[in-house]
């Protein structure tokens, strides 16, 4: 079990009388893409928020490289190497790519008693990091608002990677994107994985999951339905598990097997 970067064991999370998570176990190895699938309300969001330090689990353990840890804030989790790219991106569209990339961790250079934002270094690093991910910016002071959705995702991902993330959690990164942008983001996930970073890819699109996933865990009603290795499971089976099988089978029949 020591090859697990992070392991979450029997996580339970209660919000008052609501049991959002009722025993979820997931582990992520270095260099793998672990897909977390589930329909709306399955507990995916609560689970990743627990993982990234937003919520404290009611019960259960979080092990980081074999040692038990407890996160009091997102900042704690970030320092331990867990970076989360949220659906709403944590990018500010009015600000330039460089300003966004370095937000909260601006490099400084000294000038007498004063410290200034070191733009020349920041711009250079931003440009090279973005180029590594296959995005060629017109200029680093271009506003993030002028980028496409996929490019914004990539900025957020490369920022997390650059600042030393060991585990990268992506919250439905492809849900609002077009076909071409989706493949760009999936390609980015592949590049990140090759660096030895563990990726947690949350989605409810089975095809996107099958494209890059090494392992698949399906959540339903706050519980893990099971984890499967790539090749052991077919897309249809995942789809069935996610929707709770029965009803979807009927639906699928009436829709001619198109979903």
């Amino acid at each position, binding site marked *: 079990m020591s090859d697990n970067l992070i392991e979450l064991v029997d996580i339970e999370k209660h919000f008052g009388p609501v049991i959002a998570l009722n025993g979820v176990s997931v582990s992520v190895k270095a260099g793998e893409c672990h897909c977390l699938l589930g329909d709306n309300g399955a507990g995916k969001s609560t689970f990743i928020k627990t993982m990234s330090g937003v919520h404290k689990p009611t019960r259960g353990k979080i092990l980081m490289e074999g040692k038990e840890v407890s996160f009091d804030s997102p900042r704690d989790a970030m320092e331990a190497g867990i970076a989360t790219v949220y659906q709403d991106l*944590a990018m*500010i*569209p*009015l600000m330039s790519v460089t*300003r966004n990339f370095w937000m*909260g961790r601006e490099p400084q250079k000294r000038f007498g008693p004063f410290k200034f934002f070191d*733009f020349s270094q920041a711009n250079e690093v931003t440009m090279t990091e973005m180029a590594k991910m296959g995005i060629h910016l017109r200029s680093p002071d271009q*506003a993030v*608002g002028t980028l496409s959705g996929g490019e914004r995702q990539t900025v957020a991902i490369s920022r997390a990677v650059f600042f030393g993330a060991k585990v990268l959690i992506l919250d439905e990164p492809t849900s609002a994107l077009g076909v071409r942008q989706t493949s760009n983001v999936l390609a980015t996930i592949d590049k990140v994985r090759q660096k030895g970073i563990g990726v947690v890819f949350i989605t409810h699109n089975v095809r996107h999951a099958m494209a890059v996933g090494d392992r698949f865990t399906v959540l339903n009603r706050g519980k893990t339905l099971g984890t499967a290795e790539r090749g052991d499971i077919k897309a249809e089976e995942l789809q069935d598990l996610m929707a709770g099988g029965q009803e979807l089978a009927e639906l699928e029949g009436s829709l001619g097997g198109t979903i």
Partner: protein
Amino acid sequence: MAETQSAAAPQKDERIREMSPMRKALIRPELGAICGTILVFMFFLGIASDSGMFAPEGIINWGTVSAQFAIIAVGACLLMIAGEFDLSVGSMIGFSGIIIALITVQWGFPAWFGILVAFAMALAIGALNGYLVIKTGLPSFIVTLAFLYILRGLTIFISIATTRKTIIGGVREAAEGDPIAWIFGGKVFSGLFVWLADLGIVGKFVAGPKAGQPVVEGIPMLMIWALILIVFGHILLTRTRFGNWIFAAGGDTQAARYVGVPVNRVKILMFMFSAFCATIFATCQVMEFGSAAADRGLLKEFEAIISVVIGGALLTGGYGSVVGAALGALIFGVVQQGLFFAGVESSLFRVFLGVILLLAVILNTYIRRMITGER
């Protein structure tokens, strides 16, 4: 050679039109304010060039008024970019002035002590404004609107309760020879103007007690303060880590918090800075007039906000420029005094200002969309 070309080729996105360097240099947040400034100057050069508006004493006249606007506009600008408003600026000006006058004239303390107390109180009130906004989560518009009334009321009350007047005079006499007061009320480079007058560039008084002295005594410290604050604000915003945090706090509070920007600290500090600027304005005014009045600074908060908006800042925060705000203040000052020089009915000032505000904001919106890709 062919290889380097093919390596560079995929970097270009065929959907992005190349921008000419000229266009790139022009497309900036303060473009609207720059255009406005040029327009306003051309207009007054046309209708008021023979009125003495552009003679040295005329320039000092509208320069002083512009500097007044600029001082409070810098504070309002940084605060607005951080995503908040301060409507208590005007009341803060009245309050600080009365505090200084009470302490120095009424209670006989040295002027430097009065000034220090006023600044300390202003910073505390600014911090309280910020703290309440952060803790309650209420819009700063409401919280500072409350302080607009609270401070104004307190100012009038304190002034009447202690002196039975709303105007306290004699500050200049009390501040005579004070080590700090001249920083706010003094004039600099007077030697330069004597020299210029001897050269005949600046006129001299021909009669009266000041006969033989140049008509321009020197550059008022108010202008120096405006310049210092503009340069400080501009560098802080565009060249430092803290400046990035100001943009981030106003652009998206939640996103900024996720990446570890201390949003609360940034916002509270900006409220304090706004109050600090208001107190600089008040101190300069009190030292120049030699008196403080409880109704000083009325409507100044709106004049500051108008300057900032003419300067290209976004009312919802996260976008703007200190240089733009300073140009907005310049436009404001030139129009207000220029209409007086041109002998135009002064009530038209507001019409003029409204038109400029509207034009600048329309232009600014267009420019901002080009820069940020916002729709």
